């Protein structure tokens, strides 16, 4: 279980939101979903269109491609940044190894926030540009 108050800080632990002031984060947090996946469920399949960003709060998630195990994501790991920003198809599948609680931010919510609040737009823009620009 995740309480609403911790979401800003869970967000802050991810590089995308690292530089966000706490008050802005709590606004973003109000728009995040808390999702729960039971053990042994498939969270998404390779080839699915991704539009969600996830930060794991508890539990373990196995990312795999065909029979190849890629990575295990656990507490405070994040994934899906490209999915959030670019609507790309997943190149891996995700499977819940145990019961999983995650904070999920979906693309439409992010862009809605960006269009409603210029602070958020600026912060996201700066965070993304400063990390990906060569």
């Amino acid at each position, binding site marked *: *279980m*995740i*309480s609403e*108050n*911790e979401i*800003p*800080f*869970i967000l*802050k*632990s991810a590089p995308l939101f690292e530089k966000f002031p*706490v008050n802005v984060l709590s606004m973003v947090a*109000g*728009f995040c*979903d*808390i*999702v*729960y996946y039971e*053990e*042994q469920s*498939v969270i*998404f*399949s*390779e*080839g699915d*269109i991704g*539009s969600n960003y996830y930060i794991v709060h508890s539990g373990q998630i*196995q990312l*795999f491609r*065909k*029979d190849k*195990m890629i990575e295990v994501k656990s507490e*405070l790991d994040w994934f899906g940044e*490209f999915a959030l*920003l*670019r*609507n790309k198809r997943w190149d891996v*599948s995700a*499977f819940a*190894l145990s019961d999983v609680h995650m904070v999920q931010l*979906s*693309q*439409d*919510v992010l*862009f*809605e926030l*960006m*269009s*409603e609040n*210029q602070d958020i*737009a*600026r912060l*996201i*823009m*700066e965070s*993304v*540009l*400063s990390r*990906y*620009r*060569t």
Partner: protein
Amino acid sequence: MNKVANLFNVREEEFGMVMRLFFYSVLIGFGRIFSLISGQSLFLENYGAAELPYVYIAAGIATICIGTFYFRLGKLTQPVTMVKGNLLFMTLVCFILYAILQLDAKWPSMVAFGWFFLLFQLQSLAFWNLASLMLDIRQGKRLFALITSGEVFALALGGLASTALSSMWHPSNLFLLAMICHGIAFIEVIFLARIYSDKLRTVAIVPEALRKKENTTGLKLNSYTILLILYFAISEFILIFLDNAFNDGLKRYATDTVEIVKILGNFSAIAALIGLFTRSFLAGWVIHRYGLIVALVALPMFILVNSAMTVGGALAGSFLVMFYGIYFARLSDKVLRGVQYSSLRTLYKPLLERASSTQTFVDGIAIPSTFIMAGCILLVLYNYLHVGLYELAYVLIFLCSIWLLIAVRTQISYARLLPKTLIHRKVDNEINMRMDMEDVGEAMDDEEMRSLIRKELLSDKAFRVIHALDYLEQAGDEVLKRSLLPLLSTSDPNVRLQVLERIERFRYESAYDALEVMLKREKDERTKTMLLRVLCVISSKGLKKGIDMLEAEEESVQKGAMVGLLRSGKLEGIVYAGAALMTRLGSPIVNDRIFAAQVLEEANIGGFYHPVRKLLADPDFEVKEAALKATATIKNPILINDVAQNLVHPSLHGMVATTLLAFGDQAMDTIRRTFEKHDTNISILKALIRTAGLIRSERSIRFLKEQLDYPHMNIRQETILSLKAAGFRCDKSDIPMWEKQIDREMENMRWILMLINSLSHIQNSEKIKTSLVYEIQVHRQRIFALLSFRFNRKKVNQAWYNYSLKHEEKRIYALEMLETIVPREYRLKIMPFIESDRWSQMLKRIKGIPEVNQITPIDPVNELLKAGHEKVTLWTRCCAIEYAGNYPANKYTKALVKYTVSLSTEISCTAYLAILKLLHTDPFLYQKIMDTQMPEFIEKIEYFKEHGALDYVTNTSLLKSFDLFSPLAESNLAGIVHMVEVVNYLKGTIVYQKGEVDQSIYLILKGKIRIMDEDMIKVELSAGDMFGESTCLVKEPHKSSAVVYVDVKMFRLRQNVLYHLISINSDVARKLFNSILDNVVGPI
């Protein structure tokens, strides 16, 4: 071909797929009939009816075995591979059977007949696994029945053919034909998989290593799956019972074998005729129109009524009525079962990735099991209880009633399940709704829980500590106060801030010494400010320190001291801090005044409204912004009018709206007054409406409702969306108004479609057409918004979101869900307008619009000029006005002259430019205008002739021609044209120097620019190129200089223009953001 397609309710774009699937179904049908005839005849040749039960039982068991195997395998392989394997297997077995039938033995014929039952299930799996993947849920409802009529067709034809063939051939040769049919089907599937690879997409196969042994079913027994299994199982039960009852009735009714054959012959003929008709014409149409529920309840209803007739006949003592009761029951079963079986395949769809395995389970395991079970029960009933037609009719009535109940429940569950197939989106005004979270609240008072949480305070993860702090504070925990001080040494500044906040809130005086020590070490600025503030508030010793610190060097310390002193509530503190604040307020330096505003914001004392009011009227925009922020925190209603006055500055619209929002309903009077005062400035009106929508009070909704008939499309659009944001619900008295609005949208859309249609005959009108197509999307958005006012808001909103995604599958599910929400009377009206993506398809489906490519007497440009303002947005009208300027004849001159006095500068400028263009082409026009028009008009024309005007339309198109903006709709770009500067530089001019900070993007329209690093030319740019983008959004000095090489004309967009664009709506934000990533970062 079109007519054929229309006859069968097939849409043009689906025609190819339907034909291919029909062919596939024909092949399957031939394979089935050849196996059946050959197997049955050989069996009857060698064995008698007495051996039949053994075949049934053996086949039942074999089917279950194969079903289980198939089911297991399904989790390891892709569905398409399964189908291919299945067909290959059937081909192979048919060949083997052919081979062993050549042996001189009796047993192969028994095997061959037994094989038929297995084949039946395997074929059904092969067909449905593929067909249900290829057709989406809405097509399935319409087309499944039609496609499977191919099978009926093949059965009839194959039956006739094999009768003819059997006289020449040994029946075993028919297995060769069956083999060929399956072989061709196999090849066809390979082609289908290639053609429709996007539909037959792959699903993740969870590797063996990850799966837990005990959880390998893949089938999830939730209430919906159970309902489905029950529905199909009872259906099977009834089939067998009915068949027996019919045979029993037939035996008693008919006197001899000849009569039996006669009745059976007629029966089959009638059944086949009606069946073919129902499947190919009726079923799809009825289900499309009335929904799946018809397919679900039709058969149970018919059988129920007819069984009742049988029972009635028995009670009345008429055997004739009794017999025809069961006769019609069997007939309706024969006709409707196929329809039901095929149409109800759509019921599996909402199960998504589990659909295939559930279907396999039902077909391969559940149905054969029922088959065996029903057989056993019948044996008992006949042999021990000696039941007959009359008793069976009672059993049938009983079973059908249960069946009906299950059917209704299934339909309800189906409608409930649909939303889950869509991307869930949290609806903006229900922030506190957490769909997937278990309730946390109850555990609050549990002591055990609290001690657990207390341990969390020691965690090294900031979010855990803060969560624990919140939790314990809410629970009123005593221990919390004691644990605050040690936490001050945590390394994370966020934790320290939170702790300090609580110390202030508790007025925890004894913390003073510890805080003072901390102040000396603290590095983080925000924490420092907070520290000082807390020191001043909690004790009088701190007050003195605060007064001293007012003179400190660091701004953060000063701020903390001032806020603390103001908040301390002690007169001495307020006097000192007030004096310091006064100096800042009156300072000529902008940053000082901003500082003052920030202090006022943090102090958050309502009584101090006077200085805030002064700052709100400050000439500097940054100060104004800071003051607006402070106002939003302080929320003193006295300030509302001062806030609203800032609306005259377009760049402050966003901030003002946010600030007004903070006041909530209190601001409504001001909003209404300002609205009336500025009723010509569209952007102010839009900002006000948006704010009213977010306020969400009764008064704001009333205000918005009044604006629904505002005669301007841009305002109407904003109003409806704001009503949606306000969570408006229609009550009874609103329904006429609502219906009027819906009708208006339909009428508008019809009008727009008609214009688009007639535009196809007018050259160079692409721009108007594109903008009109965009208008359609806007209309749809409004329709969904309007629907959400009356029906389940959450579901409609969810449907809209999924509908607007560029994701075909989600769009289809969204439409299907909408069908379950909206009542039929509106659904039939609305669906044609939203169902298809392309306007050409829409045209076909909406009645009353002339056919495509048929010349219409309407002049679309004239229509737009005449009635545009109530039906389309500003941009489309400007396009039409601009286009009118191309006509040499003075066809539109009058309308154009009228538009020059429009209150919107965009419209009037475009109209003037259009007239100027006309003057160029038509020398006589000038004289005519001189004679007839007012002197002011002529003056204006002369002025524009010399100075030029804002060329709204051309500039918008130019903007769109740059890669960065190409993904955006022109109507969105039109919103920033007035903010774009056009700059002209001569050769040698330095646009910016290396090291300079200039957050602008330049788009070159003409000339050349060299990007230089010292004396080295890095790159030469010309028309169509853009530069400055990488430093525009992130505040950084330029790494190189830009020098004009050949005289240039450029667009210059400052950073705030881009952010303004982002704030138009989330869709624009998404597109622009992606484009920025593409153009600035490159593909990631």
